[in-house]
Each structure stands twice: as structure tokens, then as C-alpha cells.
């Protein structure tokens, strides 16, 4: 499932980041920030309007992503 669809506080692991094109800077940066296979991930908060942006706990760090960014990250529910 997409990270953008993951329910709040439900543990999951990253399966992959989908690139939007051949030289996708956003995809590359997401991987650099730690969105790589088998990394534990969790949605910890959502923005007050339309549930956006989404606050993600990845590794030891929290990142705010917009829905379009989070939709590129595929995850699988369950503990690593």
C-alpha cells in the first residue's frame, strides 16, 4: 500500500520508492532520507486541513511529507 494511505500509528516497513522518471530527484532524496527497503515507518500525525501534510517517523527521524510525496513510498503493514 502507499504510505499516504497508511493509518495513523500503524507500524509498517518500506518496500520501495517509486521514481516518477529516469532522473527523479524527489525519489532520490526520499531514499537518502532513509526511505529504503525494510526501514520501519509510521504515520505519527496529520495536518489540520484535509489530513495534509503527513508526519512520518522513519528511522529515528520525523519528516513532514505532502500526500503526493508520501504516495511514492510503498509500504507493508507489520513490524520489521
Amino acid at each position, binding site marked *: 500500500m502507499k504510505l499516504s494511505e497508511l493509518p495513523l500509528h500503524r507500524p509498517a516497513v518500506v518496500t520501495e520508492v517509486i521514481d516518477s522518471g529516469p532522473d527523479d530527484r524527489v525519489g532520490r*532524496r526520499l531514499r537518502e*532520507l532513509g526511505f529504503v527497503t525494510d526501514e520501519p515507518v509510521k504515520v505519527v500525525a496529520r495536518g489540520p486541513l484535509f489530513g495534509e501534510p503527513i508526519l512520518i517517523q522513519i528511522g*529515528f527521524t520525523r519528516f513532514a511529507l505532502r500526500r503526493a510525496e508520501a504516495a511514492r513510498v510503498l509500504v507493508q503493514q507489520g513490524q520489521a
Partner: protein
Amino acid sequence: MSGLIIALVGNPNCGKTALFNQLTGSRQKVANFAGVTVERKEGSFTAPSGRTVQVLDLPGTYSLDALGPDEVITRDVCLGKVAGVALPDVIVCVADATNLRLHLRFVLEIRRLGRPMVLALNMMDAAAKRGIKIDREALEAKLGIPVIETVAVMTKGARALIEHIDTQGVEAPKATEEKDPHVEVREILSAAVVMPRFTAKIDDQLDGILLNPWLGIPILLVIMFVMFQAVFAWSGPLMDGIEGVFGWAAEAVRGYLPEGLLQSFIADALISGVGSVLVFLPQIIILFAFILVLEESGYLPRAAFLLDTLMGAAGLTGRAFIPLLSSFACAIPGVMATRSIHDIRDRLTTIMIAPLMTCSARWPVYILLVGAFVPERTVWGFASFRGLIMLALVFAGIFSAMIVSWVMKLIRRDKTDSVLMMELPSYRLPNLRNLGLGLWERAGIFMRRITGVIFAANTLIWVLATFPRAPANATLPEIDYSFAGMIGHAMEPLFRPIGFGWEICIALIPGMAAREVAVSALGTVYAIGGSEDAVANQLSGVIASQWSLATALSLLAWYVFAPQCLSTLAVIKRETNSWRFVGLTTAYLFALAYLAAFATYTVTKMITG
């Protein structure tokens, strides 16, 4: 022994700047790297061995993959490829001990450059408090580089770092086989780090409240309210004090020097000119203090998180919140603060609308005109009618800024989504020393940037308003005979459709340097002498009897938009490095000002007859 150059690198929020402050104290210099608006922060200290160590604080980056100018600079400085910057002898990579999963990846990337380096394991106190155990020796062995424990706000760790670099010397790491950095980070973590919990409990609890969908925005509004209350209420006595000192100095010069050109130049152009800018320093310092506390504590990215969708609807990013907030005191620090916006399109849009936020220089003009034309009465039992009108002017600025940024988004050629990807760091108690240094640095930048422009502009305007001098048998005010007077009369036909007479046109000229100067300029035109307060008081009566309501409202509308501040335009030039962009911003703001004033004038005249 010759000097040593070290460069500090690290991820954002690793406490690098605090460590830099520990190392160099107040011996710092902030400038830009040539040709780009990437901040170049340098300092120096004397090591125990007696040699001078130069420290370069490079911008915080997540990777050397060069997505933005910050990353290009960081990479190129480490490799000695930036003209005018010497190759650093040692790279000090700073990593937050509580955030090693992310930060070690960057350490590995730096290691691959093959330059002499050490790892400063920062925030060891916070790590200890959270029960995080780090086996320093195992980390050293795994990484093949020296690892030194530091606490960003304590001198002990910084001293250990200095000693190590100073006495032991640092060698380049041996080349290792290329591995997937993420795999390597996991190996290192499992070998050297024990982490009871991924996050700090206090962060989770605070985020639960501050980012709560129902409580988050109201809490943000309360914080903003307290901040603006402080900026406008607490600064009053200090501003009066500064005004008093400069008024007294100008008077002293008038008494000391014989009447004439020199006296007028020193008293009016230099002392009053500098005073008219310095008077805003208390407000700016209070605003900066609040912003620094919010920034150091980790709250500002949370505010950006809460507002991102709202601002996104207007074509902005949540990150624009901070620069736009600063612009309420003054657009200059606001434009400077747009550096934290990485997307160039978002950054330019934010710079473009920053002058629409009601800066403190507009207040004197608003107060004068509203005071003269709007009757004071209480509405809804508690609110001041004048206060409401002022509030409406502020919201007129905000509202038009939203429309402008929305239009900018529509006409963008590059329609790809801008990205947020913003780290929310751990909450931290702000440290007084860092606050002090930050305040000192920002106030310094502000002062240096504006004094130059204000000085030059005031001199020019003084010349325009003084020469040629009035004949001995002059019947009209002196300014009427000067270049400024001629320009005012020449401008009048253009401004008549929006209701401005030549007196207002003349006042607009000195008002170009700084908006509030228009008040004292109107005083000069109507030949009223005395202090600024006295001028404003009498002027209020004069314009109430001589101007129509339509003219006054038209001038207010003009002031909401007109880019009457050379310093702001100069800063926009510096930050964007583009005269075209400055021209575009100036033109659109003047066009909006003219249209708004024209509409206001026409409609008011139709209603009042």
C-alpha cells in the same frame, strides 16, 4: 607551526552551529559565497599550541548529491574547488547522537571524499538522557575515523575536539570497499549503538498537543498574538528613547553649528536619517528574539507543518511562514529569511509578496491618516473603529499577497509540484548563549545592510530637497523651489487621477527611502517645524481641513502596496542577484498601488459626492 583550516559539515539540526559558536565565540564573520546566496560563516580561535585555527561553518545538508546550491557549495568546499576558499585541512563532520540512523549516512558520504576527517558525536547529553548507549571505540573502528563526543552547548566537548585536532593530527581515512550506505549504517548501528526507543518521549507528547488537528492552530494563533503584542507594546519605551536621543543630537548640532548648509546636512540628512531607521531596531530585536526562540526550540517547522496546506492553497509553501512573519516587522529580514526555502519558485514568490506584509514603517503613515480622517468611536461595544480600520489595512495586504502568489502559481511555466520534505527536529530548550549570538548576528546584518542605503538615499534626498535654494523673497515653502519641488509638480498630472496634489507628490519622493519619512516630508511641505510627534499632531489638523476623504483613503490604499523602500529593493537585488526580478517586483507593486488608489479615490468620490 602554520595555521589550520577546518570545515564543519553535517545534516540540518545536528547542532553544528551551536558547536561553531562554542569553538569561535563571537569572533565570527557572515557573508555570502561569491555569486550564490549561500551563507558563508567563518570564525577563528587560537588552539593551545598557539596556532590559529580558522573554522568554516558550511550549510547543513542531507547529502552531497547536490540538489540545491547549499549542497554544491558544501561538496565543492570540501574538495577545495571553490575559488577564494582554501581546501580545509580537516573536515569535522557533526552528527546528532540521537539521530544516527540518518546522520551516519552523510558521514559515510563525506568519508568517501577521502579527506582527513573526524566525527563530532554531538548532543551526547540528550542521548544519555534518553538511555542511548554508544560504544565510541566500536564506532571509531567501524568508521575508521576518530570519533569525539561533544555537547553542543558545553565547552568541554569542544575543547576535546580542539585538542584532538591540534595535537594528534588527522589523517585521511583509508579507502574501504563501496557498500550500500544504508546497509553499512545498519551494520554500524547494530555493532555500536543501543537505543531503547526510536524517539524521545517528550517529543511524542509535545507533538501530540502542538500538532493536534484541533489544538494546533489555536495554539499557534496564541503564540503569534503574544509575539505581536510584544513587538508593538514592549518596544514603545525603547523606541521613544531612541527617538529622544536622536532628536536631542539633532538639536545639539543645530545649536552648535551655525545655521546653514552644513548644519542642515548633519542634522537632517545624517542624524535624523539614521535615527529614522534605528528607531525600528527594538521592534526588530524583539521579533528576532521570538523567532530565534521558536526556531531553536524546534517549534517553527511545526508551525510550517500546520500551515502548509493553507498556504499551499495560495501557491506558497509552509516554509514561507517564517519569512512572511518577519516581514511584519520589516521586509528586509523577511527577504533574507527566504533562504530556508529550497524550491527556487517558492522562494521568488515569497520574496515578491514579502513587501505586502504591513511592516512597522507603515504604521506612522497609517496612524496619521486614520487619525485625521476616521472618527474615533466604539463599535460592537468594545472595539475601536480606528483600530478596526488599521486591521483592515493589514488584512488588505495579506489578502492581496495571497492573490498575487496564487496568480504566480497559475503563470508558472514549470508546473511540477514543489516538495515539502521537511524534518521536524527534536524539541530543545533554547540556549541563552546561542540566542545572544544569533541576535547579535542578525541585528548586525540588518543594520549593515540598511545603514548604507539609508545613508546614501538620505543624502540624495536632502540634496534634492535643498537645492536650488529658495530666493530671499520667497513666499512659498522652501521645498517648492527645490528639485524635489519641481519633480513633485512634474509628477502631479500623473497622480491627479488618484487624488494626489503636488504636496503629496513631493512627500512621496523622500518617502522612497523609507515610508515613514513621508510624514516628516509632509510636515516640511506644509511648513510645520518641530519634532516628529508635534509635526504629526499639527499635520493631522492641516490635512483634515485641506484634503478630501477620497484623497486620504487613496493615499492609504497607495501605502498598502507601493514599494516605497529602497532598502527592501536593494536586499531583493542581493538575494536574487537579478535586476530583472527587482524591476518586476517594483513594477507590479507600483501598478497595484496605482490601481488600488484609483479605485479607492473614484469610489469614495462617487459616494461622498
